């Protein structure tokens, strides 16, 4: 389904990331965030890159792995009420193209950030931890897993 068209999708959250133009919008959004951060005169280039990486990963974690359910009512009586958006993507089918895209994009951002921060140790720690927070929930083994019962209900 493409966003904004009439569709008979039971849970639109599952297909929204496959819609036309979604990946491009996401990439442009990250680019815009980076340009805004670069425009602030107080941040040097390495700081701007690390901040882009960290803010992008924080946003991704909140929207894909923390918030559960759907912002709209679904006709399936709330089947996805306890699932995060990542778990709802493509009805739980793993290794689809959207999932691969959103797994690889933080990794690319991490490479770019590491390069532009000249592999400085402090920046390395920040970038790596934030990459891990966003890569580990994407593993298929962690589908539906809630560690220590956090965010279960």
């Amino acid at each position, binding site marked *: 389904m493409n966003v904004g068209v009439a569709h008979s999708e039971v849970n639109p959250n599952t297909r929204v990331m496959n819609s036309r133009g979604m990946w491009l919008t996401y990439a442009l959004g990250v680019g815009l965030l980076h340009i805004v951060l670069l425009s602030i005169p107080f941040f040097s280039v390495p700081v701007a890159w690390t901040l882009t990486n960290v803010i992008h990963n924080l946003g991704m974690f909140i929207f894909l792995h923390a918030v559960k359910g759907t912002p709209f009512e679904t006709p399936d*009586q*709330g089947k996805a009420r*306890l699932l995060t958006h990542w778990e709802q993507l493509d009805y739980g089918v793993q290794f689809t193209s959207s999932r691969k895209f959103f797994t690889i994009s933080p990794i690319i951002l991490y490479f770019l950030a590491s390069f532009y921060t000249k592999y400085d140790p402090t920046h390395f720690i920040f970038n790596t931890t934030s990459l891990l927070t966003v890569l580990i929930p994407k593993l298929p083994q962690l589908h539906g897993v809630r560690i220590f019962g956090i965010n*279960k209900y």
Partner: protein
Amino acid sequence: LQEKEELIEEWQPEPLVPPVSKDHPALNYNIVSGPPTHKIIVNGKECINFASFNFLGLLDNEKVKSAAQASLKKYGVGTCGPRGFYGTFDVHLELEDRLAKFMRTEEAIIYSYGFATIASAIPAYSKRGDIVFVDEAACFAIQKGLQASRSNIKLFKHNDMTDLERLLKEQETEDQKNPRKARVTRRFIVVEGLYMNTGDICPLPELIKLKYKYKVRIFLEESLSFGVLGEHGRGITEHFGISIDDIDLISANMENSLASIGGFCCGRSFIIDHQRLSGQGYCFSASLPPLLAAAAIEALNIMEDNPDIFHTLRAKCERIHRALQGISGLSVVGESFSPALHLRLEDSYGSRENDVTLLKKIVDYCINRGIALTQARYLDKEEKCLPPPSIRVVVTVEQTEEELDRAASLIKEAAQSVLN
């Protein structure tokens, strides 16, 4: 390959209609000609109608019929659309307004099919993971609504408040073990005002106490009690003198007292407004034909202008309840002021089919002598708690006292001749 050919040749399809005996009830049915009014023509014989739920006799009322005919001339027959897509007429809005004012709630919503009313209202609020406490004698429409809602259903024994309290306490202890889960589960109690399967009323004051003690929402289904109980016919809340704000949702059928088709739900605006987008029967079915909405409005007018018919109806119910006591072999099930009571066999005669056949003989005896009765019909395999077979006697305001006495004596005669 050869085995495949053999298998194909051997295969016998199952018959479309399974072989049944000649006495199967689906093959021997009574034919009604004409409208099911006070005098009904069954199998060519004219009988007094003790079978249709026409409690206030508004089915044949001249004012209601002329209002419907005027509406037919103005709007035509159907609305050709659901409420959200060019199917809302001013009569619908007027009927909703009038019902809300009559029941003294903030808002009301109309459905075009009585069965679909409660079957759409329950799944609009209760989803997977929610808990619903239901009476065992709930009608089939409620059972289908619960099945569609996919919630956890907990049945409690009919009208047994101690059983319900036990279930609520168990749920409370589980909630204390897992408070985070408890914070996101919604809990509901679904009861009927006047039960169709047993003719009793629910103990509403105790239910309200339980509601505030255990924080559960109450859905009240008033199909039989709307237009029957209470000083002005407002249902079981008026009967018990309870404020209508204590009940979260009242759902009723307009097919009984109001002699129209369809149903309505009423309650606070906040609650009813949700059904305008989530009530499946509201959004995805064509709206009520305007002539039936006009008929319902006229019926409401009559109900508001003559509040003494409710008292008359209850007096007639008491009369026949007294007259039917003491029949050997049949026991009367239902409250004394319930207009729909059941006559069950005192002891079962072996299997359910035997009981059904015997009751059928009693019903045929009565039809042949001018009183139209019916057995309470159920989908045997689909009901959760199948009630025992019974004859359902319905009292309407149009039956005279002489007819009531004649019916009672005829049933006595029939029971004596068939069961002895």
